[in-house]
């Protein structure tokens, strides 16, 4: 296990919106699949609802790609959140790897660059006077 990973994080960019949001969901703490889906949905105001196939398909690719790893498993007491209850102890938890953190940082830096470019062109934030961009009413 002493070999170094040879993949450059930049090679994986740009990330898909689903992959980016899953990495963001795992940025602060390890979560199980349902926790990831819930965090993404709440953070995006319900705009991104991850179905099982999308969520676990992405997780599979990220685990295989070394961005995310399964934690050893967290034996939690069975909890009942008032919604029918679920046994968190049987769930598999996921967390970012060091490589995943580097990929996320690289993607965020890339997005920051995009935002800076948009600002320089005056098209961001929305409503700011754009260079060479005029609304129909301004003519």
């Amino acid at each position, binding site marked *: *296990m*002493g070999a170094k990973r040879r993949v450059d994080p930049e090679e994986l960019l740009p990330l898909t919106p689903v992959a980016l949001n899953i990495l963001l969901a795992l940025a602060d703490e390890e979560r199980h699949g349902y926790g990831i889906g819930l965090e993404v949905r709440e953070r995006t105001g319900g705009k991104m609802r991850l179905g099982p*196939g999308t969520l676990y398909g992405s997780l599979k690719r990220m685990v*295989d*790609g070394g961005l995310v790893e399964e934690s050893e498993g967290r034996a939690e007491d069975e909890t009942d959140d008032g919604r*029918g209850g679920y046994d968190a102890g049987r769930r598999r938890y996921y967390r970012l790897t060091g490589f995943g953190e580097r990929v996320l940082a690289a993607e965020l830096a890339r997005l920051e660059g995009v935002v800076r470019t948009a600002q320089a062109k005056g098209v961001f934030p929305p409503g700011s006077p754009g260079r060479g961009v005029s609304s129909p009413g301004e003519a």
Partner: protein
Amino acid sequence: MDPGGRRDGRDRGVAGSERVYRALMRAYPQEVRRRYADEMAKYFGDLCREERLSRGPTGVALLWARALPELIFTALQERAMLFRRNAYLPAAPGTVARWGALCALLGGSLGVAFHLIEYSLLGALGILTGDYSYGNGPFARFFAFSLLLGALSLSSLGLFGLYGAVVARSSEARPGLLAGAGAISSAAAAFLWLTISGYGAVHDLASGSVFFAPFEWLWNAGTLVIGPATLFWFLGLLLLGIAAASQPLPRRLRVLPLALFALIVPSYLQGGYLETVGSPVVSVIVTGFAQGLPFAGVAILGWVLLRDYDAEPLAVSDGPVESAGAAREATRPASRTAGGARSDTSGVERAKEKELLLAIRRHGQLTVAGVALETSLSVEQADRMLSELAGKGHLEVRVEHGTLFYSLWEERG
């Protein structure tokens, strides 16, 4: 008021949805199901529970409306990825080699049976007795042509056995240009034969022509279909034969396809002329054998593939081997090179190491037992080699639920 009963009903509904979703998950490849089926079904159950509580049955119905297309799309996506990883095969190359070999064996045998019965037996009987009605009833014709078309379809599919063996043994688990072209050609042949077989059977049964003129239409459309299908079949055999000759397969599998091609093509092309040779009885008997020769070749190829596709091309002096062919290969070099035991051993080690790495590459990741199942290595050998390779940093090791999974670094980046 029976909140407990209502809640039980809700739970039953959610559990039912979860069960149905779990059943539908068969659309995903086995690898995905093995790793994530429980979690995915559970996740879907959680979503159901949420919708049920917030919006009632309508919410659950809407969830299903979102989940079903998503399931179909992502299942297709996963299967497409698996298909690409398996060098455009629907299953692992070893599995395809095995099933293809069975198709070739069965198709070839059926083809031989058809030609021997149709030409050598019934033809000779007709000439000897002057009664040509043997086997000429409509049902007998329908059966005979179905047999022939089935033999041709299976023989074409059988070439994928050779393709599977070539891919399984290729250095990067990639088919290469020749084998790829051979597979496309074989697929075209199989498609044409299967299409006309299926269409012919359905058409004859539906139109009733099975009662008076079975497969009559086929002879009218024959020049459009039979010629190209046969051409694709021969081309597939030639290309796959050349590809197999350059792979580290057992010698029989490297030589046989090209030898068969060299033998059956002229035999097939000249088959019709044999009818003019010698006495009429001898002529039809020889014609039956000659035209059955390509199918005999396919059956032999299937038989050899079945025995040897997974055999080590080099000597295997320790551990179990999976086929008689491998066992013979194992003993031969050992007795031949008494003085060269050391170099043979390192050659065997290299071959085993390569076999192990290729298996891991094909599957993405494997356990020790998985390696033992997918290769000719024993569990002990697989365990030792995996530990050595991982210890030197050549393989990545992950622990999932207490099980060690080995994978290639570059495959996981």
